[in-house]
């Protein structure tokens, strides 16, 4: 297998944010002592007055983000996804979403990215929590191109947004020549008729690898990249169920309430077909991120195996 070049999406995020800030003086960054982990060093050097580091205080951070938006600025509120979403969930609901504040919440290093630092630092529930909040788009870019396009869209769009900015290195998956991100639209990366793998974030490249493995077994798997987890592209999901008859979802998060549940809701309501929902079902054991992804079956092999299971082809 060819070794692909991989990227930490935070780098694309940080670079694009500086570009946006150069072009628009309303763009500010807010963080919780996370200048390093949110990759805001360049931003801080170039726009020291426009970086509001509140210290280790997430409720304050999100409330301040809402206040900055009220004052006419465009705040990108950055913190480790687990602390941003869990610690300040009520602020996200009341101050940002219910108040329709123009705040861009940036959950950094989500999923299992913190590896052996353990489940206290893993952000595996964020998609479930935030998907339950009305009027809060939940965006999960899968590669640097999507990351850049998504934050440009967020800056240009008036209203609340949550962006999940990955740390675990991923290869490029966006097809050249097409817009990398369109709000609310899933991207069909590979055609297939036997089953569909619906993936988000770090799982998209692995879904593509799984489809290649499945082809060796004579199974033509479709691959759909869902970068807008909420609101979900229902049309694309219905088409997947209707045209391929089996669906596997894969996410670096709990599927209970996350992408898996979101897809299952649509499939159940429109065209019930056999499904498997891949994700983290328990608190993770100790180990680095790659090991933990294997542990949960969140690999090309694991995804392919689930597809075979759902098709009843897992006996050899």
């Amino acid at each position, binding site marked *: 297998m060819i070794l692909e070049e991989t990227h930490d999406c935070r780098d694309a995020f940080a670079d694009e944010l500086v570009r946006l800030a150069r072009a628009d003086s309303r763009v500010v960054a807010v963080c919780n002592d996370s200048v390093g982990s949110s990759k805001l060093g360049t931003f801080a050097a170039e726009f020291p007055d426009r970086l509001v580091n509140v*210290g280790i205080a997430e409720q*304050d951070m999100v*409330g301040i*983000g*809402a*206040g*900055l938006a009220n004052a006419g*600025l465009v705040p990108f509120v950055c913190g480790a996804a687990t602390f941003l979403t869990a610690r300040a969930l009520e602020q996200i609901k009341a*101050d940002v979403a219910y108040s329709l504040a123009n705040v861009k919440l940036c959950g950094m290093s989500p999923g299992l990215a913190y590896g052996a630092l353990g489940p206290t630092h893993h952000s595996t529930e964020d998609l479930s929590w935030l998907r339950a909040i009305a009027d809060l788009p939940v965006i999960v870019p899968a590669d640097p191109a999507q990351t850049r396009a998504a934050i440009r869209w967020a800056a240009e769009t008036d209203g609340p947004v949550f962006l999940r900015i990955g740390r675990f290195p991923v290869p490029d998956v966006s097809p050249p020549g097409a817009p990398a991100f369109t709000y609310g639209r899933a991207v069909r990366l590979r055609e297939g008729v036997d089953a569909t793998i619906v993936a988000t974030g770090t799982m998209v490249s692995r879904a593509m690898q799984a489809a290649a493995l499945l082809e060796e077994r004579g199974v033509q798997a479709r691959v759909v990249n869902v970068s807008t987890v909420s609101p979900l592209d229902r049309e694309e999901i219905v088409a997947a169920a209707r045209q391929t008859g089996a669906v596997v979802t894969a996410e670096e998060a709990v599927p209970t309430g996350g992408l898996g549940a979101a897809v299952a809701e649509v499939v159940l309501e429109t065209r019930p077909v056999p499904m498997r929902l891949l994700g983290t079902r328990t608190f993770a054991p100790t180990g680095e991120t790659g090991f933990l992804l294997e542990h949960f079956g969140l690999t090309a092999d694991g995804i392919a195996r689930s597809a075979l299971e759902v098709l009843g082809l897992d006996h050899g």
Partner: protein
Amino acid sequence: MRPSQTTITAAPPGPDVTGLLPDHDAIAEWRRLRERLARAGRDDSAATLAALAGGIRRTVISTIAAAGLGHAGGDLSVTDILTTLYGAVLRVDPADPGWPERDRLVLSKGHCSVALYTTLATCGYFPAERLSTFAAPLSPLNGHPSRRSVPGVETSTGPLGHGLPVGVGIAVGLRLRGSAARTVVVLGDGELQEGSNWEAAMTAGHRGLTSLTAVIDRNGLQQGARTSATNELEPLADKWRAFGWEAVEVDGHDHLALLDAMTAPHDAGRPRCVIARTVKGRGVSFMEDRVEWHHKVPDAEQARLALEELR
């Protein structure tokens, strides 16, 4: 066709649930009041603000009694604070609630929405008749103020401990934009038990936000008991000073004392906390300083008695 018992006749006219638009007559009246107060001597100002507050208190009682919902005790304790702010302090334009240079008022104790709604209607943000829809199905006037539906509401509040961080963000943002506008956050005393306030207090002190004022409606009661019996807040002024704020304590029902405290020149580089000593249920003898009037609704006779006392 013979009408049967199940025939559905035309529904009775419901409350007006359309959006809230400025009431230009009320705005004109409010502007005249502001001009008069700007020229008035202290005695005249005190009398004018007291009359304004009396009218707001009466509307608060009748609105809550009609809706069967509300937080009368806290509404009556915060009324003089809101009256002073909108009568003589805040630079706002009810005809243009989104004016970028407006002063911002955040009511962190969002359960006292009726006092806020009544004050906003008095300024002409929307017609006072719409107060009668408070808490009715689909009314823009929810039990807690929503930025989505009420002009003049800067952020939706209700869960406690949210207003001060938002106020700090507004003050930081206005300073970044080079605006001279002020930010005032009105908090309950009980809600100071929420840790988020102290995160924000630390940030405001650290950043020296002189355009930020926190006004504490210090009525000494929270939903279930006295604050001192629940989780003691004193020495309250010292706590704010320790966080880098200037703190003053005033009689929260003395409009001129409030006005002086809110408008005095700032200590260099410090946000200001005005601890307004108030009485929950102020103005209605049987409600004053009684914990059960946190969210008890007056029945018809109690409302009549209360309105009589407030006359």
